[in-house]
């Protein structure tokens, strides 16, 4: 399996970051960084990461099912994550979530037909003092109002 040069460099650095014989430590970071490039945790990615860190694909499967950011199915190009946990809830994060579902016609962990946007109702993402918060891929959006959410989604629909 081939990756971009940047990702290869990152993998090399990761595999050198841990004590000798402890390369398995790179497993979760490699899966997450790999997913960012490949689009999901594909069977091929599992085999490749397993080979590089020296475990079996089964061991990789066992680990990846634990982590909520690792996805076996491809997400949308823009993965919109809306927090409805307590601090965001107090600033109507739940209403933002309902609004986004209605506007896009999709639900939790679903993708729009064109593959452009996916939605996920997420647990606390660490933006509690600037609630309600939304994350698009890794970008944070704070103090999101219904109007700001509409603009955000409209722009994502058009964005290349």
């Amino acid at each position, binding site marked *: 399996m081939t990756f971009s040069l940047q990702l290869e460099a990152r993998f090399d650095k990761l595999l050198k970051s841990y004590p000798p014989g402890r390369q398995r430590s790179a497993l*979760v*970071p490699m899966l997450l960084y790999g997913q960012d490039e490949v689009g999901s945790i594909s069977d091929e990615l599992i085999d490749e990461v397993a080979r590089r860190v020296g475990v079996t694909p089964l061991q990789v499967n066992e*680990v990846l099912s*634990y982590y909520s950011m690792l996805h076996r199915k491809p997400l949308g190009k823009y993965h919109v994550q809306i927090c409805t946990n307590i601090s965001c*809830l107090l600033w109507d994060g739940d209403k933002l979530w309902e609004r986004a579902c209605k506007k896009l016609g999709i639900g939790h962990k679903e993708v729009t037909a064109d593959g452009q946007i996916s939605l996920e109702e997420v647990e606390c*993402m*660490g933006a509690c*003092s600037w*609630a309600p918060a939304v994350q698009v891929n890794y970008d944070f959006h704070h103090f999101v109002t219904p109007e700001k959410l509409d603009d955000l989604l409209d722009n994502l629909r058009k964005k290349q």
Partner: protein
Amino acid sequence: MLYNEPSPLETRVLTRRFSLPNSASIDTYLATEGYQAFVKAAGMKPDEVIEQVKISNLRGRGGAGFPTGMKWSFVPRSSPKPKYIVVNGDESEPGTCKDRVLIENDPHQLIEGCLIAGLAVDAHAGYIYIRGEYRYLIEVMDKAIAEAYERGWLGKNIQGTGFDFDLYTHTGAGAYECGEESALLESLEGKRGIPRIRPPFPAVVGAFQCPTVLNNVETYCAVPAIIRDGGAAFAALGVPKAGGTKMTCLTGHVNKPGVYELRMGFPVKQMIEEVGGGMRNGKKLKAFIPGGSSCPVLTAEECEGATMDYDSMGQRKTMLGSGGVIIMDEDTCMVKAALRIMRFYAHESCGWCIPCREGTTWLRKILQRFHDGQGTRNDINLIGDISKNMLGRTFCPLGDAAAMPTISIVEKFRHEFEDHLNGKPCPYEHAEHMVMA
């Protein structure tokens, strides 16, 4: 960058560089006494470093509040095994967003804290575990680490002291449980984040089965100031049994939510009224959570005379926790709040301990039923009973974290559960929908 306006009532120790241009750069850091605490510590004996941390009354800022100096003293320095410094930057306790600000605005302060901890326990490598959602902070931290290597503040023979130290970032991938220290260590080793049975504690058997100092981001960030100005100066900022400042995240129904650095022991009322700009829309305070969603809830009456420190919160049978303050006004439905908190713990339970795995799921279902108007009077007691049966019966504190707020909400806001009985729709939600219609 800062996401909220600072408050004049803050005491700037960990955040002292935040208002400077390029506060995250090594040039800014070095121009403002940066790395001087490391130089000072390198000239001290390890025991003297630990002694200053003990004198400072610094207590773990992740939530448990364990005395940091004591924790460091448990590391067997004479062990032939390598020792490790591990930074818990998994910040996932609902209501908490302070470590994010610390790393983003002053990453070198964290590096220096790790170096000093390394000197104190004879560790020569460290890992900064950062939650997966904070991807941009991995980039910030990697950049700062690269700068530190270039300028000789990391690597071999740092600044001619003869001390070697390597530092690495490690990303999580979405798991609240990995903020628990032993689960974090499992995760760092490329496994599922399931807690370890203790003892042995990480100080003796931690990362890679070696002695390890494991502290929260904020804890390490306090260390340079302690060594620079002396433990006594740091202790004097706080209250008798807890020194320094606390990064406090005001969240919920206040006019100016934000992250503020407040001296330990800051009065709760003043924090809400003056730092937080008062309650939103002039509403009354109904409920107050001092340090993240796992802490028992206080009523407005219980907040009278309370201060933000371990003892004051302990007297009120809650905890200072992580500094994630959650403020709820009179219109908040406490059943809904309990439900949302329980949904979180049910989602995050790793499933290893049955009382937690089953308890959180049952409670989520019962609370959901209740909020939908299908609850019975017996359910109110059942919620309390199940929660109490989870307490102390799990390997890690996640079970307790789910049970404690729930027990307090049922005890203190029982009437709100009764308001949902007999098929009645949520009285609080209902009013809101009327307005919206």
